[in-house]
């Protein structure tokens, strides 16, 4: 670097020695933006690393999955038959999600350690060195596999459940897991690992969730189909649960929120950099007059940017560690609750993320610098000051045109968007259209208000000051608008979802009790006067359009499914469904079939039954939230004819009014253990708790983005005060009281914030509409009505008003002293 450039760099950097606050804001913007983005990227990377290991269980290959065609769970007797038939590398797995006595969700995985195929000399072979090097090397495994057994609990799970070594975790039904050992293996993530024998005893079952198998040759696959294909189903682990595909919408959502945080952080940087360049304009002029070429100034500024970018990326990456550690448990809970995916709640760091943050920081700074730098070095101070007024108007008019163009583009692209990424691209068009339209909206409202308020000169002055404050606050207000649109959009989405889910669950879980399958016969229920109704469903699984199709047999008079459950249907559909059809069976389909497979009302599907291939006429659709598969509902009488070997599920029991206690007594008297029935009221409450936890990560990120936007407003106000200090000193020199002073300063901020809030409402609703009717449909194949609740939005606006007020008060606190000091140098400037 030449001497000229070095001297130029030292001169330009000297600005920050005199204005440490500006340096702080550049850093804060970069650190917050990089930190939030990196935290989200780290969370996504950690989750995706877990998905990549989805075809492994505890370090062992699980490329294939074997389930029972009828009941899904595999009987131990079938497992034994498989081993005797030579399939010795199949191993049993029990996976369960339970609730502890304290109400915490726990995830359990159990397998037969001695059946695990450690690979070393080929598939299924046992290699001593592999065993020694495996997590199960040593003698600890013997205590795991023999009574009283052990429960291996990962440290993060132990911390969450507040359990220590030797303690037994108590389940809600009263049972206890084996004594805790704080230890974890590869791919165990947050799951508690116990021996299969312990699990079978604990859950009092003779069935396992599934059998897993390492890679199978074609000959082995064929032999399996020949010998066991009629009872058991062999599927690739990736077919059973394609986690990357399923979770794409959530990770894209998180990435979008992370990027939004980065953009908002960049706005802070924009502002600070803009101010610093403007304040150094005279210095640039002097440097050029003294012989520093424009190129040297540009290189100096670029070097300064690099220094900021590296510092921001380093500190941002450091900030991301505790941030992602705090947010990861919520993401892990979301993965578990929505997708059944097991993800560790400990985020993984990788250096690639640091370089990504550095690149983003440098790109953001470059964007922030390019235009102002070109202006600052190309024009004289007087010229640029004089042109600022004109440029402001032309620039904002151009932005308005861009905003309208973005909206038009979104309208044109809407029907064509067919992937999650395209859906989020639509969302970003809406967000940036709003941002582009903000300046012209603020100025128009201000101009309109001035025509209405002509008489009061102080009000006219305050309104006129909008056009002088807005250039300083423009970026901060844009950041606030982005944040509000995202907040309103997501709040409305979550609110609509909660309402729809509550309605749906209240119908679906309308039975007072659910009794586990196989523990109670129909005859037991006869004559029980506390029973109002008792129904059970039966399920058969088939395949349709490369996805699992669940055919469910339902009693036509079951209270948990009726005409109100149908969302789109032919006339008198429920009545027609109840009586059945001639030659073609009538079904209701879940809406996933409509959105993901293009099935419409009146269409006919062909499915395998035990009586051969049969046609099914779709009479209508029903909501089936959270189901990743297709589903058809068939009247139970007809279901029994078509799928005779399907085992019925458990009983849903509706109890007479005020007979809840009698019902519990009655169930006990029927010989049922407490673990064999569950109160559905508790399940409903738990489901809603899970729902709220599921969206905790989104709420957290929204709150953090609002915090970043408030920092942007605060820094902009400080910059504006500094920039206009001479003008403010003039006001005071003319005898303006502090009340009048802050009234003229404060009113434009009130107006700008009000315009931001007003603009965020329609755009926020548009965003939630897109989330519900486009992205949700693309991702999950179901939708729900958009219901706007006013309370959360009013609360959000109150929070924003308080945040803006706090920023204004904080920024104004030192102004009295600063302006009074400026009074002394007002004359003689």
């Amino acid at each position, binding site marked *: 670097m030449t001497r000229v450039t070095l001297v130029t760099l030292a001169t330009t950097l000297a600005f920050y020695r005199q204005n440490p606050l500006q340096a702080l804001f550049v850093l804060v913007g970069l650190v917050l933006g990089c930190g939030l983005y990196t935290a989200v990227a780290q969370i996504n990377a950690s989750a995706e690393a877990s998905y990549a290991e989805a075809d492994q269980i505890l370090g062992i290959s699980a490329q294939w999955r074997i389930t029972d065609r009828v009941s899904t769970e595999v009987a131990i007797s079938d497992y034994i038959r498989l081993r005797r038939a030579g399939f010795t590398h199949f191993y049993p797995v029990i996976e369960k999600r339970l609730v502890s006595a304290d109400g915490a969700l726990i995830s359990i995985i159990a397998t037969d350690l001695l059946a695990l195929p450690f690979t070393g000399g080929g598939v299924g072979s046992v290699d001593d060195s592999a065993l020694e090097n495996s997590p199960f090397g040593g003698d600890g495994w013997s205590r795991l596999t023999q009574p009283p057994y052990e429960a291996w609990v990962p440290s993060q799970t132990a911390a969450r459940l507040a359990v220590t070594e030797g303690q037994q975790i108590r389940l809600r039904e009263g049972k206890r897991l084996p004594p805790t050992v704080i230890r974890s293996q590869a791919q165990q993530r947050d799951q508690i690992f116990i021996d299969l024998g312990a699990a079978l005893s604990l859950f009092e079952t003779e069935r396992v969730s599934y059998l897993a198998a390492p890679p199978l040759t074609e000959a082995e696959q064929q032999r399996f189909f020949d010998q066991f294909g009629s009872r058991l189903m062999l599927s690739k682990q990736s077919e059973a649960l394609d986690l990357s595909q399923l979770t794409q919408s959530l990770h894209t959502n998180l990435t979008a929120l992370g990027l939004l945080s980065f953009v908002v952080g960049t706005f802070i940087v924009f502002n600070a950099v803009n101010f610093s360049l403007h304040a150094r304009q005279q210095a640039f002029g002097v440097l050029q007059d003294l012989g520093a070429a424009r190129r040297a100034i540009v290189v100096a500024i670029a070097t300064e940017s690099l220094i900021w970018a590296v510092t921001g990326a380093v500190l941002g990456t450091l900030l991301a560690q505790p941030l992602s550690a705090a947010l990861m448990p919520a993401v892990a809970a979301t993965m578990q609750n929505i997708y059944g995916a097991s993800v560790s709640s400990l985020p993984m760091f990788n250096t690639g993320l640091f370089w990504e943050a550095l690149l983003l920081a440098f790109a953001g700074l470059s964007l922030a610098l390019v235009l102002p730098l070109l202006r600052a070095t190309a024009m004289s101070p007087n010229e640029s000051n004089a042109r600022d007024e004109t440029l402001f108007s032309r620039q904002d008019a151009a932005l308005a045109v861009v905003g309208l163009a973005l909206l038009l583009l979104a309208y044109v692209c809407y029907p064509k968007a067919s992937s999650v990424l395209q859906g989020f691209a639509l969302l970003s068009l809406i967000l940036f259209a709003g941002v582009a339209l903000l300046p012209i909206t603020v100025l128009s409202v201000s101009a309109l208000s001035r025509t209405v308020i002509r008489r009061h000169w102080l009000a006219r*002055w305050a309104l006129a000051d909008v056009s002088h404050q807005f250039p300083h606050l423009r970026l901060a207000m844009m950041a606030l608008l982005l944040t509000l649109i995202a907040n309103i959009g997501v709040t409305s989405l979550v609110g609509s979802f909660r309402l729809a889910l509550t309605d749906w669950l209240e119908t679906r879980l309308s039975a007072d009790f659910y009794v586990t399958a196989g523990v109670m016969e129909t005859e037991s229920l006869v004559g029980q006067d506390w029973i109002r109704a008792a129904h059970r469903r039966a399920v058969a699984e088939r395949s349709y359009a490369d996805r699992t199709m669940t055919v469910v047999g339902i009693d036509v008079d079951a209270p948990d499914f009726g005409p109100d459950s149908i969302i789109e249907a032919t006339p008198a559909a429920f009545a027609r469904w109840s009586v059945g059809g001639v030659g073609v069976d009538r079904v209701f389909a879940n809406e996933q079939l409509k959105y993901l497979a293009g099935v419409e009302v009146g269409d006919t599907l062909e499915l395998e039954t035990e009586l051969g291939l049969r046609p099914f006429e779709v009479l209508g659709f029903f909501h089936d939230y959270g189901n990743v598969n297709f589903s058809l509902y068939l009247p139970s009488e007809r279901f029994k004819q078509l799928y005779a070997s399907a085992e019925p599920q458990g009983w849903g029991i509706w109890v007479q009014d005020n007979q809840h206690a009698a019902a519990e007594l009655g169930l006990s008297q029927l010989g049922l253990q407490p673990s064999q029935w569950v109160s559905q009221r508790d399940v409903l409450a738990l489901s809603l708790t899970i729902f709220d936890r599921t969206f905790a990560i989104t709420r957290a990120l929204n709150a953090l983005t609002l915090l970043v936007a408030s920092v942007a407003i605060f820094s902009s106000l400080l910059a504006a005060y500094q920039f206009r200090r001479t003008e403010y000193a*003039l006001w005071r020199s*003319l005898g303006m009281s502090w009340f009048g002073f802050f009234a003229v300063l404060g009113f434009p901020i009130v107006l700008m914030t009000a315009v931001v809030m007003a603009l965020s409402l329609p755009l926020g609703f548009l965003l939630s509409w897109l989330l519900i009717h486009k992205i949700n449909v693309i991702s999950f194949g179901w939708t729900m009505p958009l219901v706007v609740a006013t309370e959360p939005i009013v609360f959000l606006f109150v929070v924003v008003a308080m945040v803006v007020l706090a920023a204004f008060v904080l920024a104004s606190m030192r102004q009295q002293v600063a302006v009074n000091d400026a009074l002394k140098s*007002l004359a003689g400037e």
Partner: protein
Amino acid sequence: MFKLKQVDKSFRDRGDVIHVARGLSWCMGSGESAALMGESGAGKTTLMNIIAGLDTVDSGEVLVDNVRIDRLNQAELTAFRRNHIGLIFQKFHLVPSLSAWDNAALQARLAGAFDQDFAAHLFDMLNIDHLAHRRPNQLSGGQQQRVAIARALMHQPQLVLADEPTGSLDEATSNAVIELLVSAASNAGATLVVVTHSASIASHLSHSFLLGSGSLAPAV
């Protein structure tokens, strides 16, 4: 109109102590006009700030219209300045978002002393009535300074202080502006003090004083 009694004022500049006033006494009566002259750095602006209540003294008394302004707190000073003093700056310091009319009316409105007829008369006298609706960036330097003069006089203060009011103007405009200022102040019965380097400007005023080494003496 104002009286300075045994005023001391100094400040530090990188270790050096600069005495603006050492036992300085000065008084001027109502309706009088004076030029305050001296070398650069003598403290002319500081002295003017002291009289305007924009700066404080180390010791001594400062009376304006018989009020000890050196004993007033910030709020009282602001109110006093609002009602009794008009200020004119070298760089005009008009509010960019207000029209010429609103700029000129600003202090009078703050003081609750705005008189529409007097304002129109002042604009006519200063020959800026056709510029009333223009904004500062649409006015020349001379026009802006005339608006600033109107602002300083519109609330009919007892004292007008002008710091290098023609410093940013060319010679012809300077002469026109100073003539208007002296005439308008005289018509309003205000005491006028003008800080200036220029003997030509000083010649328009009834008295001239030279500030140097902390003391004030009549200029020859």
